[in-house]
């Protein structure tokens, strides 16, 4: 029996912004700053309920009647996480284990548009409901123009040890085109403030592949960003996200994205310049000096559990993914009514979970170990009754054969992949991807090549069953 993994990260969403960028499709609101205090109350209520539920889950075997008892105080949809307990809880034995994340992440929106007082309130919430003794990394997202020494001091005092700064460009014309509401000078100033406040670990985001930006201009932006000294950088291509203003303009023929060749050139330029300055590409769009990788995100990509709290926040735990409804009013309303926010829940079948671990893990430089993922899949399958998201084995096998197969997979990680339909598919697909120069083998691990990183989505689609 395999217990679900403990919650490694907690995410708190702050959906407020001082405006909407053209490319943005995230749930963020401008002009609702009057709701911030109520929102912080609601956020705390949800975190409290989740952490109590978590304690409860860790403590008991999770029968439905017990769940109902707990639910009397704070009703939550049973299908959200509740019924996941049946198979996975038996191994959880230790009493009174509170939620003790290794990482905290406060993102948005723009958390730094909160007033100094509100920011202090926000930062005080986690300690009241979480055990922070294991905490290694606490990130807060910030935008230039909203960050000052006072706010940075509040963050520092609360225990925040990492700032992620949304710079996007160091060219005023490009910033304006992207719909950003700050200048390059403000971005430089914010970087200086972060360093002055004593933050060693911080990140700078850039958006590349903006049409109309010359190759030399882009290279200058990247060099200038490197010169600001961030130990971590994220570089994204400008993409058309459903629901963004940009997507609308593209549909109407008023805007276009850069062509394939232009995008490649742009991202390759960034990679070369960043590598030269000691920033290693540890994920498709993320670069860091060794030791400065974002633990929170790495944990998500490795398929570990995380809890997202707040309007529109997403979570992954107990073989489920759920996302709170992107609706501030509904979120506040639920809190006033003492109930959990409306959310969409997806129960992950063992196979889906295995596929997720493979394709998102593969986005990282460390790659994946398919045999280990398959072994975990076998183990979870063995703990599930047939029919509960578990498929019957495709080939007819005897009980002994099946048992032996399971043992082999667990006992010999890195051994043969070809023990299940999924394993066979992966083995043949990886062999082909290797021939095509997209994936290479490192011991039992599979790692994307440079070309594979350019085609990561295609590689992922090939590996899906």
């Amino acid at each position, binding site marked *: 029996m395999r217990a679900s993994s403990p919650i490694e*990260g907690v*995410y708190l969403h702050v959906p407020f912004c001082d405006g909407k960028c053209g490319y943005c499709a995230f749930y963020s609101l401008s002009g609702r700053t009057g709701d911030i205090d109520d929102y912080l109350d609601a956020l705390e209520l949800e975190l409290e309920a989740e952490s109590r539920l978590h304690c409860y889950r860790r403590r008991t075997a999770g029968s439905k009647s017990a769940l109902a008892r707990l639910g009397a105080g704070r009703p939550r949809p049973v299908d959200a996480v509740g019924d996941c307990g049946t198979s996975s809880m038996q191994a959880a034995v230790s009493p009174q284990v509170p939620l003790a994340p290794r990482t905290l992440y406060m*993102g948005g929106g723009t958390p730094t548009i909160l007033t100094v007082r509100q920011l202090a309130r926000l930062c005080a919430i986690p300690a009241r409901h979480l055990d922070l003794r294991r905490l290694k990394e606490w990130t807060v997202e910030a935008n230039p123009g909203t960050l000052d020494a006072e706010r940075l001091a509040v963050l520092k005092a609360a225990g925040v040890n990492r700032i992620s700064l949304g710079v996007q460009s160091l060219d005023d014309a490009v910033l304006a085109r992207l719909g950003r509401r700050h200048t390059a000078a403000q971005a430089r100033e914010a970087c200086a403030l972060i360093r002055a406040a004593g933050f060693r670990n911080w990140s700078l985001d850039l958006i590349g592949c903006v049409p109309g930006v010359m190759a030399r201009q882009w290279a200058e932006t990247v060099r200038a960003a490197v010169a600001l000294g961030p130990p971590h950088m*994220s570089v*994204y*291509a400008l*993409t058309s*996200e459903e629901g963004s203003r940009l997507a609308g303009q593209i549909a109407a023929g008023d805007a276009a994205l850069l062509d*394939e*060749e232009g*995008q*490649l050139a742009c*991202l390759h330029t960034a990679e070369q310049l960043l590598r030269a300055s000691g920033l290693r590409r540890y994920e*498709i*769009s993320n670069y860091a000096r060794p030791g400065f990788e974002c633990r*929170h*995100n790495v944990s*998500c*990509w490795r398929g570990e559990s*995380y809890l*997202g709290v707040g309007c*529109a*926040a*997403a979570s*992954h735990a107990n073989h489920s*993914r759920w*996302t709170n409804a992107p609706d501030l009013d509904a979120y506040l309303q639920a809190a006033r009514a003492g109930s959990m926010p409306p959310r969409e829940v*997806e129960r992950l079948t063992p196979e*889906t979970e295995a*596929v*997720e671990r493979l*394709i*998102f893990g593969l*986005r990282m430089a460390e790659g994946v170990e398919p045999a280990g993922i398959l072994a975990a899949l076998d183990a979870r399958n063995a703990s599930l009754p047939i029919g509960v998201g578990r498929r019957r084995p495709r080939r007819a096998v005897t009980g002994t054969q099946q048992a032996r197969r399971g043992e082999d997979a667990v006992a010999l990680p890195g051994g043969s992949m070809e023990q299940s339909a999924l394993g066979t598919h992966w083995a043949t697909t990886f062999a082909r991807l290797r021939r*095509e120069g*997209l994936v290479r083998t490192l011991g039992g691990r599979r790692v994307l090549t440079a*070309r594979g990183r*350019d*085609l*990561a*989505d*295609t590689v*992922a*689609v090939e590996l*899906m069953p």
Partner: protein
Amino acid sequence: MRTLPNIRNFCIIAHIDHGKSTLADRLLMLTHTIEERNFQNQVLDSMDLERERGITIKSHPVTMKYVARDGVEYELNLLDTPGHVDFTYEVSRSMVACEGALLVVDAGQGVEAQTVANAYLAVENNLEIVPVINKIDLPSANPEVVARQIEEILSIPAADAPRISAKSGLGVADLLETIVQRLPPPKTRDDGFVRALVFDSVYDAFRGVVVYVRVMDGELKAGDRVDLMNSGLSSDVKEVGRFHPGMEPVPVLKTGQVGYLIGTLKSAGDIKSGDTITLTQHPAPEALPGMREIHPMVFSGVYPVNTSDYEKLKAGMDRLRLNDSAFTYQPESSVALGFGFRCGFLGLLHLEIVQERLRREFDLDVISTYPSVVYRVFLKDGTMEEIDNPIRLQDPSRIDHLEEPMIRAYIICQNENIGDVMKLVMDRRGVMDKTETLDGQRVMLTCTMPLNEILIDFHDYLKSVSRGYASMDYEHTGYVKSDLVKMDIMLNGEVVDAFSCIIHKDKAVYRGRQMCEALKDVIPPHMFAIPIQAAINKTVIARETIRAMRKDVTAKCYGGDISRKRKLLERQKEGKKRMKEIGSVRVPQEAFISVLKTTG
């Protein structure tokens, strides 16, 4: 010979949309064969597909009782017929069971190509033709001109042609009188033998094979033991009946009447239209003159998109075949597409309808290969073989020459489009035989063309160069020697047999380029470059390359984005699964359609 004065057997022939089905509906109502309250448009078109597309595919006989103004009750047997050229054989099948035909012409549109083709067919079958000018209540109606066209083009007297509006009923009561007065009654030899002509058969899931018959001599009744003289089958007669318009049993089917017979026959495929039914005990000395056997003219491979649907496809085809004896199929396999069937159709519309019925009635997604006609291949050793699949073409070194089937096409168009239409015909290797003026505005072109030139998109182009006005019909005129070659399409170096076609040498380069371009547009980039080549006898004559995909999306992918991202990728995966894997290349279904489209 004895005449049966109280019976009239007739059909209605018309160009599409000239009001054939509406007139049939109106006749049924006036004779109280159906009551107005039970009325549904196009009563005789029972298939959904027929009603939707406004076309008649199957023949539907119906018997009406009519008391004429002379006080005598007549029995009128109407054999409704399909209008489209693909179903000409259905028309001629019905015609052999009739003595007369109403030739319906739209008073606004005038004589059209199918009017001409169907009128010729009626003349061939020795039918008395009564022209009927319909839609005279339309503002655009010009009955005088139309009457003159009928006389000039078809040489049928039309000065006293009934002028009606089937839609409003105007003149239809008089038309019933005309039918009685001008169409000849059937005659019988009265020689003591029973002869009934089989003109169609359908399969009924509950009752078995229902045979449509016209009794020429003698009578048929339940309990009789009958022989089918040409096929050699025999059967007990379990029931005879008439169409009112539903099937209603009667004790006896009398001389001259049209009706049905249900026997102990199991498969509609056993029954050949044109066969003669006679009594086993007292067989007629000779059969009735048969009818032209139908041969499919257009062939195409039909394959399931999902290879696992093969059995389902076979079952679907078996079922269709029961009611559509013109549709033929036999198993074949393709390197590219796996297991499927080589199917024969009467024409492209027939092909399209069969595909549509497979999709609707059997929930099947199918891919069709490039359509082909039947070519005659004369080998150097003096033998000849007929091939309906380009794959079967022998090595060119063994071939002496090829022959292809020709058609005589009748095209009617507006005067101002004549240049464009002639150019289109000549582009398709056609030769103009005759140009006739219909009236001040329109001409009829008679031309000879290879059948394979009209297979794909000729109708579409004809409509487009004539801004929708031109109409066309054709008849087969036999084979001529032609300079034909087999063209292959190669994807990533491998011949895709489903795209192979036989084509005139002069058109190969042009067509090859078109096909490569079309495929380039619909096949998505892969992780490797894909050459698309057209080749004749291994010599490449056209080439396009689909460049390798070099980059896909690089967007943010944080915790909150993972399920969204996964679902996005799952959708992409579904799309890929719907494609057909040919070698290492994934080919979307549209590719099989796109190669049929050309660009001028």
